[in-house]
C-alpha cells in the first residue's frame, strides 16, 4: 500500500477472569484507511475497538498508534476519538456545546475552537441545528452530531462502534454513503465495527473478519467474498455452498478435489499460508451465483446432479434449492432477467456446473 501505519496491534490478548475475549490478535491498519472489524456479536470486535480507544486494557501484547506505544495510556491521553453505538450525546448540552467539548478539554483557544465547530457542523451538514438540544434531533441528525463531535479534536484515528445500527434501513443506507464521503474529506483513518456484512463490504478499504476472539481473515471486500480462507468466513460472508470434499491432487494452491457424486473440480486454496496434503478433508465453497443450471439442450452432464427442491422468488432473482443424492443441499441463484425464463419444477432432475475458477477449498 505504501502508506504509513496508523494502528499496529501485536499479539493482543484480553482475558476476563477465566474467559478469553481476544486470543493473540495482530493487525496493521494503514493511514487514511477505512478499516472494518466485522463479526457476529460476541466475537471480540467491540473489545478490540475499546482496547484501541483505551476503555479496556490489554492482558498481553502491544498497541501502537503511529509508531508510539499507547497500551498504557489512559483513554483521555490517546489522540483517538469514538463514535458510540448509542451516540451518547450529552443531553444537557446544545449541538454546538457537544462538538465544542473535546476542544475545550484540550484547551484549544476559544476563537479557534468556535471555527472548528463551525467547520465540523458544515462537514456533517448541520449548520442550521447548532443551537438545538440532542433530544430535538432525529436519529440520523444525532448520528451526525456524534460524528462531528468525535472529529472536532482532529483525532489521529476515528473509532466507530456500530454507529449505524440504531438507524432504520433507508437512513442507514444513506448514512453509509455520507460516512464514506466524510472519511475521504476528513482524510483520517476510520476503524469501524459492525456485524452487518453489507455495510462492511460497501464501506471498507479492508475488512478483518472476526470470530471467537480471533481474526479469521483480513482483506479487501473482494478478497473476503471471493476467496474466504476458512469455513467460518465462507459461511459468514454472503451465502455459500459448502460441499464436503477431499483433496485428490495439488499443484501448489491449485487443488483437485472430489465432489459428492464422484466428479472432480479444480478449486483454489485461498489460505496460501497453509499446504494441504493429498487426502485432506475440507469443503469446496461455491457461491450460489457461481452455480449454473445446465439445460437439456446442453447435451452434457455437469459436475453435480440433483433433484430440485423449492423455489424462492427474491425479486431480481430466484433461489433454487437442489438436493444432492448424498443428502447435502446446494442453493443457486437464477436471474429473473428474462420474463419467462423456464425454471425446472420441484422434483425434476437437474445437472449443475460450477463457473470455472470460482470454486475455493477451505479446511475446517
Amino acid at each position, binding site marked *: 500500500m505504501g502508506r504509513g501505519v496508523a494502528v499496529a496491534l501485536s499479539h493482543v490478548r484480553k482475558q476476563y477472569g477465566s474467559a478469553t475475549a481476544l486470543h493473540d490478535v495482530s493487525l496493521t491498519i494503514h493511514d487514511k484507511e477505512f478499516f472494518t472489524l466485522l463479526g457476529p456479536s460476541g466475537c471480540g470486535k467491540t473489545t478490540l475497538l475499546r482496547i484501541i*480507544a*483505551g*476503555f479496556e486494557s490489554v492482558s498481553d501484547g502491544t498497541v501502537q498508534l503511529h509508531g508510539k506505544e499507547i497500551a498504557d495510556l*489512559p*483513554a*483521555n*491521553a490517546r489522540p*483517538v*476519538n*469514538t463514535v*458510540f*453505538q*448509542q*451516540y*451518547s*450525546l*450529552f*443531553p*444537557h448540552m446544545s449541538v454546538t456545546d457537544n462538538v465544542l*467539548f*473535546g476542544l475545550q*478539554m*484540550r484547551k484549544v483557544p476559544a476563537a479557534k475552537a468556535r471555527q472548528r465547530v463551525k467547520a465540523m457542523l458544515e462537514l456533517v451538514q448541520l449548520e442550521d441545528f447548532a443551537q438545538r438540544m*440532542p*433530544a430535538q434531533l432525529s436519529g440520523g441528525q*444525532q448520528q451526525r452530531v456524534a460524528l462531528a*463531535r*468525535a472529529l472536532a*479534536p482532529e483525532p489521529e484515528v476515528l473509532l466507530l462502534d456500530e454507529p449505524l445500527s440504531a438507524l432504520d434501513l433507508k437512513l442507514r443506507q444513506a448514512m453509509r454513503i455520507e460516512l464514506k464521503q466524510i472519511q475521504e474529506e476528513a482524510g483520517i483513518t476510520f476503524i469501524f465495527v459492525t456485524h452487518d456484512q453489507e455495510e462492511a463490504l460497501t464501506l471498507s478499504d479492508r475488512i478483518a473478519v472476526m470470530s471467537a476472539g480471533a481474526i479469521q481473515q483480513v482483506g479487501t471486500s473482494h478478497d473476503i467474498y471471493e476467496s474466504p480462507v476458512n469455513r467460518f468466513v465462507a459461511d459468514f460472508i454472503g451465502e455459500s455452498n459448502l460441499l464436503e470434499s477431499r483433496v485428490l491432487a495439488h499443484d501448489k494452491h491449485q487443488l483437485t478435489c472430489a465432489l459428492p457424486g464422484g466428479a472432480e473440480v479444480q478449486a483454489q486454496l485461498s489460505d496460501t499460508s497453509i499446504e494441504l496434503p493429498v487426502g485432506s478433508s475440507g469443503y469446496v465453497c461455491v457461491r450460489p451465483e457461481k452455480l449454473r443450471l445446465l439445460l437439456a439442450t446442453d447435451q452434457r452432464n455437469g459436475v453435480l446432479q440433483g433433484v430440485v427442491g423449492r423455489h424462492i422468488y427474491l425479486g431480481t432473482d430466484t433461489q433454487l434449492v437442489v438436493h444432492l443424492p448424498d443428502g447435502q443441499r446446494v442453493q443457486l441463484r437464477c436471474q429473473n432477467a428474462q420474463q419467462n425464463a423456464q425454471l425446472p419444477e420441484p422434483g425434476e432432475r437437474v445437472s449443475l456446473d460450477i463457473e470455472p475458477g470460482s470454486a475455493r477449498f477451505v479446511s475446517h
Partner: protein
Amino acid sequence: MSTASARIRAYPGFGIVALLCLVLLYAPLLVVMVYSFNDSTSITQWGGFSLRWYKEVFTGVEAAKFKVAAWNSISIALMATIAATTIATSAAIGMTRGGLWRGKAASFALINLPIMVPEIVTAVATLIFFSAIGFKTGYLSILLAHIVFCIPFAYLPIAARLQGINSSFEEAAIDLYATRWQAFRYVLLPILLPGVISGALLAFIISLDDFIITNFVKGAGIETLPTAIFGAVKQGIKPNIMAISSLMLLVSVVFVTVSWWIGRTGNKPGDT
C-alpha cells in the same frame, strides 16, 4: 390508566377501605391544621377563626425558645443534607460504576440498612457509641447522627437515577480528553442532578423532623424543633403547638412536592 382504576374501583369494599385509610391518615392532620386557626385557648372547642396562635409562635413567651430550636433544626438539616448527599452520591457512583467487586451486595445492604432498622435501636446504639468513645453530646453529636441516618434516604433516588444513565456518557467525555473529575463535573453531575436534588430534599426533610434519634443523642440544654415541641406538649397541649406543627407540615409538603416534581420532570436522562 382509566380502565385500570375503573377495574380496581369495581372490587367489593374498595371504597370503604380507601376511605378508612384516608381518614385515619389525614383526619388528625386536618384537625391540627384547622385548630391552629382556632381563636379559643381550648384545643377541642372551636372559637372562631384567628391567627393568634401563629402570632404567639413568633412573638409569645415561648417564641425565643422555639426560635433557637428552629434555627438548630434548620442549620443541622442543611449541613446534614450537604454531607449526606455528598456521601450518598459518591456511594451511588461507586456502587453503579465501580464494576463488580467483592462485598458489593453487602455494601448495598449496609447502605440501606438504616431504613430497615427500627429507629429506636439506632438511637440507643448511637447514644451508647457516643458515650463509649467519650463524645460530648450536643449540637455536634446531633449533626453527626443526622448525617448518618440521612445517607440511605439521599442514596436511593440518586442511585435509581444513576442506574438509568448509560455509562457511555462518561466514556464519551473521557474519550474527548476530559479527566475523570471533568467527566463527573461537566457530564455526569448535570445529568444526575435531578436525582441529587431529589435525594437532598428527602434528606433535609428526614433530618428536619427527626425526633427519636435526636432526643437520645442531643444531651441536655439543646433542642431541635421536634424535641422542643415534644417538651412543650408534655406540659399540656396548647394551640400554638398546632400552629408550629402546621408550619412544619407546610415545609415538608413543599419539599416533598418539589423533590417529586424534580424526580419526575428529570426522568429518562438522555434516553435518545
